[in-house]
């Protein structure tokens, strides 16, 4: 639904000879139709630049942006102003903002009607559509209120209703929940999720909160210094050895100093999460399993979890139990490792590459 290829954005401050900041560096992003795609990264990573390039609020320096099969970069033309075709394409892409950006001079209803006015709909149609959307976001009662009379969460609901007014297929959201408290964040995310399901809306959202990705994203990408360093469906990422995103989604820690013991991280999804794997492991091999840390959550509607367990004996001695865990459909990753160049490859599967976050727990 949204594809960027080789997207590069260089900001020049102070004229053509000024300092150049590369905000986006050859970004290839692919967002499938109907999914919620989260882009996460630290401040200054280029997330906003990326999303603003998608509807060409920001002109990419090079590269192309295709939305719903339409090459927007080709529509953009040369000058700084958006031509008619680009504007028509933009009206089919909704956008939600961190600071809501509602017009304070207009009522809630008139704010929602604004995109329809731009499309040239009649007054009656606009009012009907606005009422429908306000009901959809649960604000039917507040149609006559002014934005300043609403709470942050309500304002964002109006922002979402407004973004959906022109019936876009794609919704862009730049930190839509960053100005909201956790409770309100949850309700807004729930709303986005529902809209995604009910309307088949493709959502590209920017966030710096892992929780947002965890609770609603089907896919995610991690940005750093203008590049996408990791991306894929959340399910795949969790099963990817050494995935930073997976580690960040489910941070587990603790233990792991003793070379005579083996510490492994297990990631389990779907059915595996429901099975009593650990007790079966303990019974089958008659070993003591200690659980050092665990996190279980629902990601994209599936139960997913991570657990760090400790087995007696060296890693090499635990090949069989680890093989058993893998057979059970768990992803097993060694939490401690002698060093990046000397991976003790277990016969049951590929060695886990070093996980940056866990590197400090090296054995002596």
């Amino acid at each position, binding site marked *: 639904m949204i594809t960027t290829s080789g997207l590069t954005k260089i900001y020049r401050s102070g004229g053509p000879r000024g300092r150049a900041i590369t905000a986006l560096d050859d970004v290839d992003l692919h967002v499938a139709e109907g999914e919620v795609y989260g882009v996460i990264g630290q401040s200054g990573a280029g997330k906003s630049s990326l999303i603003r390039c998608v509807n060409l609020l920001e002109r990419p320096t090079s590269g192309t942006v295709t939305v719903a099969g339409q090459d927007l970069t080709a529509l953009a033309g040369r000058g700084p102003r958006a031509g008619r075709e680009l504007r028509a394409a933009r009206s089919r892409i909704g*956008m939600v903002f961190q600071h809501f950006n509602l017009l304070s001079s207009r009522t809630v209803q008139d704010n929602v009607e604004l995109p329809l006015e731009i499309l040239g709909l009649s007054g009656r149609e606009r009012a009907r559509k606005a009422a429908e959307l306000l009901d959809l976001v649960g604000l039917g009662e507040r149609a006559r209120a002014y934005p*300043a009379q609403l709470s942050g969460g309500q304002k964002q609901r109006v922002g979402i209703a407004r973004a959906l007014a022109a019936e876009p297929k794609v919704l862009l959201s730049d930190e839509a929940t960053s100005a909201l408290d956790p409770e309100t964040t949850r309700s807004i995310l729930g709303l986005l999720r529902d809209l995604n399901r009910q309307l088949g809306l493709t959502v590209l959202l920017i966030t710096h909160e892992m929780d947002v990705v965890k609770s609603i994203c089907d896919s995610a990408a991690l940005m750093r210094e203008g590049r996408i360093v990791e991306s894929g469906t959340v399910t795949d990422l969790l099963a990817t050895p050494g995935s930073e995103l997976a580690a960040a989604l489910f941070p587990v820690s603790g233990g792991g100093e003793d070379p005579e013991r083996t510490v492994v991280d297990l990631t389990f999804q779907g059915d595996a999460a429901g099975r009593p794997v650990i007790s079966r492991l303990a019974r089958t091999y008659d070993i003591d399993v200690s659980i050092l840390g665990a996190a279980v959550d629902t990601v994209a509607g599936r139960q997913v979890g991570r657990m760090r367990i400790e087995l007696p004996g060296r890693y090499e001695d635990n090949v069989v139990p680890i093989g058993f865990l893998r057979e059970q459909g768990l992803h097993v990753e060694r939490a401690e490792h002698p060093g990046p160049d000397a991976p003790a490859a277990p016969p049951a599967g590929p060695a886990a590459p070093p996980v940056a976050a866990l590197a400090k727990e090296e054995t002596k």
Partner: protein
Amino acid sequence: MTWSEMQPLLEQASWDTLYMVGWSTLIAVVGGLPLGILLVLTDRGGLLGNQAVNKVTGQVVNIARSMPFIILMVALMDFTRWVTGTTIGREAAIVPLAIGAIPFFARLVETAVREVDGGLVEAVQSMGGNTWTIVRKVLVPESLPSLIAGTTTTIVALIGYSAMAGTVGAGGLGDLAVRYGYQRFESDLMWVTVAVLAVVISVIQFAGDFAARGLHRRSGHAGPAPRLRFLRDRDAAPERSPEQSAGQPPEPVKSSELPAP
């Protein structure tokens, strides 16, 4: 001078002032609003981003603003004759008043429009709005309280300038005060005229503040309405003082007349 003698003079002068100020305000708003918006749009990073237009417009506005009204009136003599067919009377006075007020109001518009949150512009752009839509649906409505405050300031300034229009025989309250108070020593009439002017200005200021505050409240802002006029009055003061000494003598007259009675 008795009240019955004063009354027709005051009435006529009030109408003349209203006429001149009314028309010149209207023209100033019609001309200054687009000019002010143009200054914002053509600025670097603006929607139209045209440095050449911006620099030229800005310079023209600056020069026009820095010119004392009395000089502007003389300088525009030919233009006035071309527009109105005469250089004398109320209509003739409207031309320099309006032209003097256009850049004044344009700067107030510029300040007001710059205050509008860029995020709103971006929101409308993301909906597919063009520049004209942004001007109509965002820039003007969102800055309306400040624009009203600016209009009030302009009206009050125009009432001040209109006193000098007496030099071209346009009449008006300021002219009445000068002619009778200063030239004929009818201090009673002068003080009544000054009082009328004070009342008129207070009423306009009050009405303007009320409207601006009402709009500001309606859109739910906490805190006071924009206080543009105070900001502007202060930095406009050095420019207006030479005109005051040239065209509005009530101040020096007051001090010399006071010990007499």
